[in-house]
């Protein structure tokens, strides 16, 4: 079947349409959501197997040949990220049953989640720069709804800032695409890459690189542009926060990874030095926030920013090893962030607050939750053999090999800071004696715990089974390091 790569995009769309009609019945919505999310995961696995055996898969939409029409491209990187995003969405949907509340369920929560997945999967898959903008907008539009759904005061207040920031970044995105089109005369990403390598390192290309960095940096929350993230992400409830934290910023990172390996690799001394500097500043800013706050949500949110910095540093180093590390770490971070936010949501649900000073002593009544959280914390900090380790090791090792000593040391030190911040969280929530003794009645958290724990288990498996994942990741890295593979597959030369 030649339309295979479209399935992970089409299934969420079809599900969302069906869910709009089912808005009256919550239980029907739940069933359709679960079936659709599972089907998306399965289709992603099928596409991945196909990509593994036959190489990069492309679909020329509307039968228009490659540089003229819109092309969807499933290379290994895309489909790995699509699979991860679909698995996370499945877990979040399962988690939402008990936590999101009927008010939100009746107001199109499930269709919007499917639309978000559609936007995210589309952004990962598309091979057309303007189509990337369109999928970004689908994703953002869903996120506007998700951030405000439920309509509490803090959500309304934060959503205004969030929308404003994203409207501005979308405008810059369109302008950047316009510039790129006027310079290269194409919108197909593979074709643009060919044209840019014909032009060489003209100053205008560097300007474009920085323009795109601003756009994707605003979505991906890199150093001077992350200011909107902590406030906005703290507003919505845990499952939505998990979706945002694990998917939205990572789409920005994916876009930077794609454009900086496919388009803007000609003027590396300038562009990639900026990237590296910003990456380190991002890490420092994230670490300051993660250590300063005494709030479950804020500590985890600042950990997103630290991870963004580490990923950017991997992209900036731009060797085969560092890109492999980035891909490893990207997938790890998506899974573990979703897991941590879901676990954090359970903790907030039990304690009734997200303020660390008012929490404590949960380990007595909820031991499994506590130990799972500790395991997830270790994975986040990158303690071997858990999943964060491989990615960080590769990034740091390639950093040292490229004599980026300062950067590599900062990445290493950031792991300590991450470990300190999450262990601090663990101690405060689970270990410390609470100020007010906990009520004896244990809250039921079984159905909340299962999807969160599933993500943590997945992360552990991903860490332990690194050997099994390695060939897949290396296939993704090959297409990134050698743009010719990607270009040949798309333009079919």
């Amino acid at each position, binding site marked *: *079947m*030649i*339309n295979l790569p*479209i399935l992970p995009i*089409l299934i969420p*769309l*079809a599900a*969302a*349409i069906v869910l*709009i*009609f089912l*808005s009256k019945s919550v239980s029907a919505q739940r069933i359709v959501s679960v079936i659709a999310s599972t089907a998306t995961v399965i289709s992603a696995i099928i596409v991945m197997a196909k990509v593994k055996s036959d190489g990069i898969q492309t*679909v*020329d*939409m*509307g*039968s228009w040949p490659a540089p003229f029409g819109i092309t*969807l491209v499933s290379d290994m990187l895309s489909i790995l990220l699509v699979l991860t995003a679909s698995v996370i969405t499945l877990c979040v949907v399962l988690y939402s049953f008990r936590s999101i509340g009927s008010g939100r369920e009746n107001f199109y929560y499930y269709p919007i989640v499917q639309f978000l997945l559609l936007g995210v999967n589309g952004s990962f898959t598309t091979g057309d720069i303007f189509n990337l903008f369109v999928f970004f907008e689908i994703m953002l539009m869903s996120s506007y709804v998700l951030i405000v759904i439920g309509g509490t005061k803090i959500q309304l207040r934060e959503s205004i800032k969030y929308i404003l920031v994203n409207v501005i970044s979308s405008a810059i995105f369109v302008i950047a695409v316009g510039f790129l089109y006027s310079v290269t005369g194409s919108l197909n990403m593979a074709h643009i890459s060919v044209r840019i390598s014909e032009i060489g390192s003209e100053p205008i290309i560097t300007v474009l690189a920085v323009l795109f960095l601003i756009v994707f940096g605003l979505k991906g929350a890199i150093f001077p542009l992350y200011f909107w993230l902590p406030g906005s992400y703290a507003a919505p409830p845990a499952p939505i926060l998990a979706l945002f934290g694990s998917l939205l910023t990572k789409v920005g990172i994916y876009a930077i990874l794609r454009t900086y390996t496919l388009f803007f690799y000609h003027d590396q001394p300038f562009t990639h030095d900026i990237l590296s500097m910003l990456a380190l500043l991002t890490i420092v800013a994230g670490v300051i926030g993660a250590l300063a706050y005494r709030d479950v949500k804020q500590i985890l949110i600042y950990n997103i920013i630290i991870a963004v910095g580490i990923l950017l540093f991997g992209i900036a180093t731009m060797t085969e090893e560092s890109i492999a590390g980035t891909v490893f770490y990207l997938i790890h971070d998506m899974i573990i962030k979703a897991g941590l936010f879901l676990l954090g949501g359970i903790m907030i649900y039990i304690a009734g607050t997200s303020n660390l000073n008012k929490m404590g002593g949960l380990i007595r009544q909820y031991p499994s939750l506590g130990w799972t959280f500790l395991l997830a914390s270790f994975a986040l900090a990158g303690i071997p053999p858990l999943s964060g380790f491989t990615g960080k090791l590769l990034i740091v090792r390639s950093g040292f090999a490229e004599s980026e000593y300062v950067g590599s040391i900062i990445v290493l030190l950031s792991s300590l800071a991450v470990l300190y911040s999450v262990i601090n969280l663990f101690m405060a929530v689970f270990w410390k004696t609470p100020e007010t003794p906990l009520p004896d009645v244990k809250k039921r958290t079984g159905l909340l715990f299962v999807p969160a724990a599933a993500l943590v288990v997945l992360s552990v498996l991903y860490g332990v089974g690194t050997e099994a994942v390695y060939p897949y990741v290396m296939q993704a890295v090959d297409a990134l390091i050698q743009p010719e593979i990607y270009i040949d597959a798309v333009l079919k030369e």
Partner: protein
Amino acid sequence: MKTNDVIFQTVAKVVFFMIIFFAVRIFFAGHYYPGGGFVGGLLTSGAIVLLLLAFDMKTVKKGLPIDFKCLIGLGLLFGAGTAAGSLLFNVPFFTHAYDYFQLPLFGKTSLHTAMLFDLGVYFVVIGVTMTIIQTIGESE
């Protein structure tokens, strides 16, 4: 505030149909000439807004018992369904099929699957604009 706007109401009833027919005309012009689902949809919702201005929301709801949110879903169904039809024939997604037909009354007409997609756009635009206007208007 109750004003006597009998002239407005009478004119609105007539103009409503004129706008609707013009919208349909624009919609079908869409493939070769300026027009299409988006403009047609906006015009149609403009006509409904005119009714909303002339009468109140309750009357219009009685006259047009449509759930506009479902209309969005219906439109998306048309759009996605047309595109997904290419899955059945194993041609790339969104592939466009068309032919010329000898229809009674119209003569030689070209029919496209793109028109079905445009119909989806038409429904989505009506659904979206009317939902927005109703949401803001209802709370007054």
